[in-house]
């Protein structure tokens, strides 16, 4: 370090400008390479054969079924993860009990496990010769290669989002308002519904949006447990997988584009929620 630039001096200012320009171009390059080029590629490939493909693709029974199935799985997953996630978050934040630290760590398990592992585990439990298989077989209920197992793995994989987003908001809002509600005569349920829930709603919305994105995009675990039976257990992502394998490139890419658009919509929702949470914290 021979030429020491004085802080705030001309040379220092210029160097900072160059560093800033460099950093900005790195970000722009990153976004372009990883986001814009692939997305543009999808749009271009999907629409290359002309607009008629759009009609053909979304009229096809298997495509419609695949999207419907993804919709149903996502919806049920959201209901379950919301109810369960809020409850677990509340228990983890508000209650003190033995094993709380352990439970808190277990919540992250689905983040750490590969979805394929989750799928294999489900097969191990419910598949042919699995631990719980005899009980369900005896009652004529199919779990594997059917909706129940697909729901099970999707829910398992999506569960941490609501918990992890609601937890810090619950900590942030504290217990005083809940205490106040109870001294004013509110039952635990009334206090939760009228005070806690409105206070955590943006955190919850954020978690639900992330869950939805995860549920819609899930493929690994679902691929293993569903068997990907066309028109039966084939979700939108599984359809895209098959379409590309079978060289129906345009249809596959079109379906992928629809999923991408849904993701963008979710992203906008997520950003709105984040903004609201920040505003609430600064209030």
């Amino acid at each position, binding site marked *: 370090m021979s030429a020491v630039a004085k802080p705030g001096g001309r040379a220092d200012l210029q160097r900072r400008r160059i560093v800033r320009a460099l950093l900005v171009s790195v970000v722009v390059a990153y976004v372009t390479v990883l986001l814009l080029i692939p997305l543009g590629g999808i749009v271009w490939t999907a629409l290359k054969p002309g607009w008629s493909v759009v009609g053909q693709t979304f009229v096809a029974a298997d495509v419609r079924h695949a999207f419907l199935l993804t919709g149903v799985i996502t919806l049920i997953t959201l209901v379950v993860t919301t109810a369960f996630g809020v409850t677990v978050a509340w228990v983890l934040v508000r209650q003190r009990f033995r094993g709380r630290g352990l439970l808190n760590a277990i919540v992250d398990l689905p983040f750490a496990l590969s979805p394929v592992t989750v799928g294999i585990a489900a097969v191990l439990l419910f598949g042919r010769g699995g631990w719980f298989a005899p009980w369900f077989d005896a009652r004529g209920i199919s779990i594997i290669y059917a909706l129940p197992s697909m729901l099970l793995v999707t829910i398992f994989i999506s569960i941490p989002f609501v918990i992890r987003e609601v937890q810090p908001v619950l900590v942030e809002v504290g217990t*005083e*308002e809940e205490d*106040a*509600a109870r*001294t*004013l*005569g509110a039952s635990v349920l009334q206090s939760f519904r009228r005070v806690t829930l409105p*206070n955590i709603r943006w955190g919850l919305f954020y978690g639900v949006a992330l869950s939805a994105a995860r549920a819609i995009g899930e493929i690994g675990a679902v691929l293993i447990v569903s068997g990907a039976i066309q028109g039966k257990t084939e979700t939108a992502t599984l359809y895209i997988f098959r379409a590309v394998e079978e060289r129906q490139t345009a249809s596959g890419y079109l379906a992928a584009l629809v999923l991408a658009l849904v993701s963008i919509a979710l992203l906008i929702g997520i950003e709105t929620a984040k903004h609201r949470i920040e505003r609430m914290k600064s*209030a």
Partner: protein
Amino acid sequence: MTKPIVVHQLTKRFGDFEAVTDVSFTAPEGAITALLGPSGSGKSTVLRMIAGLEVPTSGHVWMGEEELTVKSVQERQVGFVFQHYALFRHMTVANNVAFGLSVRKVDRAAQRRRVDELLELVQLAPFRNRYPDQLSGGQRQRVALARALAPQPQVLLLDEPFGALDARVRQDLRRWLDELHRELGVTSLLVTHDQEEALELANKVVVMHEGKIEQVGTPSEIYDEPATAFVAGFVGSANVLHGNVVDGHVHLDSIRVPGADHLPEGAAASAYVRPHDVRIAEPGGPPNGSVSATVERISRLGWVARLSLRLADGNVLVAHVPQEELNGASEGDRVSIDLRNPKAFHRDGVEEPARTA
């Protein structure tokens, strides 16, 4: 409709830590009782146990004839005012005040009437559609008070209600609360660490320290007849002089302070003398056991002057003397002083309150 609160042998342990130990007192019907103590003295925990927000490890709480300890929070019908207001941030002022009525399914017209009445009472009628974050601290605390009063509680519990406000607002709100209480006459229990607040507002003061009660009495009993060294040091300001008991006096190198007749000969003792009980003797007056001291500094604070007086043994006393009683003393003078109403306490095992005048 208002009732007294009786607290009997209340104890609360959090793990190994005993926050409240064997606390018993009565908050008389229609009066303001203050729970006074430094932070960590367990006073808020007592209040929260009365409200049902904490479960006592042992002991009982009664409201009039009914035992509260067996009831849930929402059955107790106590109004609670929190230090940080705890207003529902997503509700308007009017909806905050109405909350206690709406969870009890009071009909809408009656709710509206009561909300109007209370907003009038706390002088916030024009703010009914505002949100808490659009109000000042003083206004928020008035909303919190209106909300607590809305369901017509039998007792009002106030947890450091002015603690988060600046000095000026605190003064105004204190006076205002005093008037409001005279009007409503609801049994009130006020938790505070501010002795001035307790002495000004309360009819009865319970001084707490390290989870235990030090003294229960009227404000003047607490101030004039402190039962323990802690109370003498915590309530009001005091000069503390350490010495040993000789012949009913606390002896120091240069002075002997009377008032230690109740202590055994030779015991380590401290004498507490309030700054306004230190007087400058008239020059040429009878030498009635007075002590001589050097005036180190005089600050004139309006009608009263604050003096630092150095004794021959190096101890410094603070005196608050009315201007006309200075008897011409100025900085550097040697004067004779009288110590009035000294209180002597055992020194062993007593924690020294760090506050002098």
